[in-house]
């Protein structure tokens, strides 16, 4: 086996989106030498796609807002399945995280008195989203990127080397988290550009790789979202929490086919856009669930008044949490009242003057004009649900972001589970990245410092195994395994996987279909072992995809298995055969672990799965937090015994 380059760092952050960069900044500022590894170029992470804003109860737009209200909204949105301590920390710390960005150079839109402007968003009681037009994610990523550069400039002044304490390894992929006994001791990675392998040895690894959307056909997610972090953590012995909860954003583009799934920001609705079916009816009024009845307008007149006078009117039902809106659109389309290309109409053109639309929704205007040749100031958009976000993720400790059961492993952002419960509110993801990115970086640095002098070494055998695994696609003829057959095209396998997940474990789920999905995933897993690639290791996308398939298959199985197990409908998990929310499931977490904990290669038998599922009860919600809610509301979610404890 060839000699693999090794480097020594204190903290390795996998992923350079909002959470990863925030973690890296924190770790570096706390004195840890920090390396960041990302699959794309520095500054291109999927965070740039976030449009709406960062939810933080700064009370700039409405003085009644505070962290308690934000906490309440978050718990309601997540249908009380949230890891409540995370929701609490998130609501408390988000304002500081936003203000801190300003000191690093961020320029948010302003209020009249010069503070950060905040906008309305689905599920938030008050205008709460700090934003920059509809490109907030870009502002966030650029600010963090520039803060990292600022730190590197400081290091350059002191040491003469920009990368002495904080280095970004861009266009590199991690394929394994390396362990020494129980402990994390580094990562195994390759450079996409050259195909060269390398090992970063570090006692702390922060996983911040984002989501899993590329396992679905219609998704707003980019190619990077192959569930790498979820899979790496699983393979390293961590548990994945509540993977059945996948958010389908209600408004993705449905036409043309090549852009199907690309997001249409929720701000379109927050700023006055309405949903109509092919009869021209604002159908959302028919879909307000009982738990939300008092909070939403019953007539179009009241809903329209709300934009001007939110104090005395209830909000329009277009601003219900995302899961509700997505299901409503799905029902309208199924009932034959959809738009020509299988969505519904989202209209701003009749609601605002053209010039206001262009000013407030510039990138949406741009996006539809350039990609669909639709002028949103003159005609309605066609939209439909698109896979957007996974609420489930690595099970972590709320305060430290440490992965449960794997010392040295931390997780933050979309890849971590718990924070959003069964459904995430818009705007809570960017604040989540900042709050828990910082916490992960902080505790990863502390963990590394606590191990000074007794760092776990990386065993050569582990490195060799990881290298062999990564090279498999080049020798796809699997005579060694005794499996005959021609090599498989990784692109074809990926398409079949996406189709399977989209059709069988999509927005509305049924028992039989999910069983079928598990069976197909098993077959795909076996075929994926024969996924072969041409050419060499230098920037070879076929090879990269072949390696990512392992992760997508693992994560897809988690989603399917957990979805099959949870026999209720809640948030981002809707069962046609169990259409209601069941209070008995309220305090149940589903945990996925690897069935073969030795971390061996994928199981060859399509009948058997790679994932083992277990249940646990959630921690009871702290009484002072429960007291923030009215009793009548809690009755709808919590079981009797939880209420009277």
């Amino acid at each position: 086996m060839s000699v693999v380059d090794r480097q020594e760092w204190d903290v390795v952050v996998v992923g350079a989106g909002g959470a990863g960069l925030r973690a890296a900044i924190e770790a570096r500022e706390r004195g840890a030498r920090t390396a960041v590894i990302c699959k794309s170029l520095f500054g291109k992470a999927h965070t740039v796609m976030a449009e709406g804003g960062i939810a933080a109860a700064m009370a700039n737009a409405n003085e009644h807002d505070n962290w308690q209200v934000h906490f309440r909204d978050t718990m309601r949105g997540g249908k009380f399945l949230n890891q409540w301590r995370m929701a609490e920390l998130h609501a408390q710390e988000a304002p500081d995280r936003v203000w801190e960005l300003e000191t690093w150079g961020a320029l948010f839109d302003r209020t009249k008195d010069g503070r950060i402007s905040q906008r309305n968003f689905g599920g938030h009681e008050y205008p709460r989203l700090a934003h920059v037009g509809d490109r907030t994610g870009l502002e966030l990523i650029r600010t963090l990127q520039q803060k990292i550069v600022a730190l590197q400039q400081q290091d350059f002044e002191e040491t003469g080397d920009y990368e002495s304490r904080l280095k970004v390894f861009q266009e590199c992929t991690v394929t394994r988290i390396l362990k020494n006994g129980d402990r994390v001791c580094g990562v195994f990675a390759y450079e996409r550009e050259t195909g060269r392998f390398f090992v970063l040895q570090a006692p702390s690894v922060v996983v911040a790789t984002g989501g899993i959307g590329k396992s679905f056909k219609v998704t707003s997610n980019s190619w990077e979202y192959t569930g790498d972090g979820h899979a790496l953590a699983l393979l390293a012995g961590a548990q994945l929490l509540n993977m059945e909860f996948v958010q389908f954003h209600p408004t993705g583009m449905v036409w043309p086919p090549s852009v199907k799934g690309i997001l249409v920001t929720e701000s379109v609705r927050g700023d006055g856009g309405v949903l109509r079916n092919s009869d021209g009816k604002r159908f959302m009024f028919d879909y307000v669930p009982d738990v939300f009845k008092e909070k939403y307008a019953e007539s179009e007149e009241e809903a329209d008044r709300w934009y001007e006078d939110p104090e005395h009117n209830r909000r329009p039902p277009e601003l219900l949490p995302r899961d509700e809106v997505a299901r409503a659109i799905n029902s309208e389309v199924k009932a034959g009242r959809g738009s020509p290309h299988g969505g519904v109409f989202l209209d701003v053109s009749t609601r605002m003057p053209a010039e206001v639309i262009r000013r407030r929704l510039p990138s949406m205007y741009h996006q539809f004009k350039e990609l669909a040749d639709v002028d949103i100031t003159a005609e309605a958009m066609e939209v439909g649900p698109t896979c957007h976000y996974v609420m489930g993720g690595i099970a972590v400790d709320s305060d430290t972001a440490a992965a449960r059961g794997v010392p040295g492993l931390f997780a933050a952002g979309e890849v971590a589970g718990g924070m959003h419960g069964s459904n995430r509110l818009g705007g809570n993801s960017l604040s989540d990245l900042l709050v828990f990115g910082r916490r992960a970086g902080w505790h990863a640095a502390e963990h590394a410092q606590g191990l000074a002098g007794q760092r776990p070494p990386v065993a050569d055998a582990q490195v060799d195994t990881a290298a062999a695994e990564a090279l498999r696609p080049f020798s796809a003829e699997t005579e060694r395994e005794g499996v005959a057959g021609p090599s498989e095209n990784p692109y074809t396998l990926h398409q079949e996987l996406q189709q399977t997940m989209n059709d069988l474990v999509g927005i509305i789920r049924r028992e039989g279909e999910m069983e079928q999905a598990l069976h197909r995933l098993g077959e795909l897993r076996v075929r994926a072992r024969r996924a072969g690639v041409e050419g060499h290791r230098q920037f070879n996308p076929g090879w990269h995809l072949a390696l990512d398939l392992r992760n997508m298959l693992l994560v897809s199985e988690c989603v399917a298995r957990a979805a099959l197990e949870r026999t209720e409908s809640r948030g981002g998990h809707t069962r046609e055969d169990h259409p209601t929310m069941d209070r008995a499931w309220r305090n149940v977490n589903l945990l996925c672990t690897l069935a073969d904990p030795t971390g061996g290669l994928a199981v060859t038998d399509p009948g058997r799965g790679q994932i083992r599922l277990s249940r646990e009860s959630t921690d009871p919600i702290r009484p002072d937090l429960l007291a923030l809610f009215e009793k009548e509301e809690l009755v709808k979610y919590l079981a009797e015994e939880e209420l009277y404890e």
Partner: protein
Amino acid sequence: MTSYEARFKVWRGDVRGGGLEDFTVEVNDGEVVLDIVHRLQATQAPDLAVRWNCKAGKCGSCSAEINGRPRLMCMTRMSVFDRAETITVTPLRAFPVVRDLVTDVGFNYQKAREVPAFVPPAGLGPGQYRMAQEDVDRSQEFRKCIECFLCQDTCHVVRDHEENKAAFAGPRFLMRIAELDMHPLDAAAESGLDRGRTAQDDHGLGYCNITKCCTEVCPEGIHITDNALIPMKERAVDRKYDPLVWLGSKIRRRSS
């Protein structure tokens, strides 16, 4: 839905050499050039290297040259071409090639590091920043930049003169200096850093001959030349070539 067969020429190779390779490939309604490149990967050339990410014109990864013009592949609709036309796709030609359509854009990251960062104002803590919308408008326009580096690629200062790369930051990073110089709370001046002067002295603003190709290729429609580069040139004139301003600053310094 209609589909047709389009003829493509795609540059394939690496730093040791390469050339344009011919392909005939299916094109469907509403597709963009990146869709076609992906179809080539999936059906004819699985190891065709291409950099892409969001596929919605927001990340600035899939920069290339299409029929000789620097563009984002994801934002170039196939419908703008004649069906009989052969479409040529090459990597960015101002940067070293890595493989196929992927280039080494390290030049840009190096230049990013050379621009001194935002200097927070002393005495203002987090949450105490107050800025008027009209004061942040200008810098916000520049912060729309998705760093696709098309402006850096098209700028003849470095595209046609490799030797200028050391001295010239390029439109994107001169615009970054403008963004910071126009930031209402940037305290660089108080810390002794004159951004207008460094733009001219350290970052090569004088190389720019305002021929506006950067503005022409910008997929975000940022008025790089009119709103960033020319105002920076004028600010440099204030510092360096305006005797009245120079005299004024001397007098004011003496009296204060």
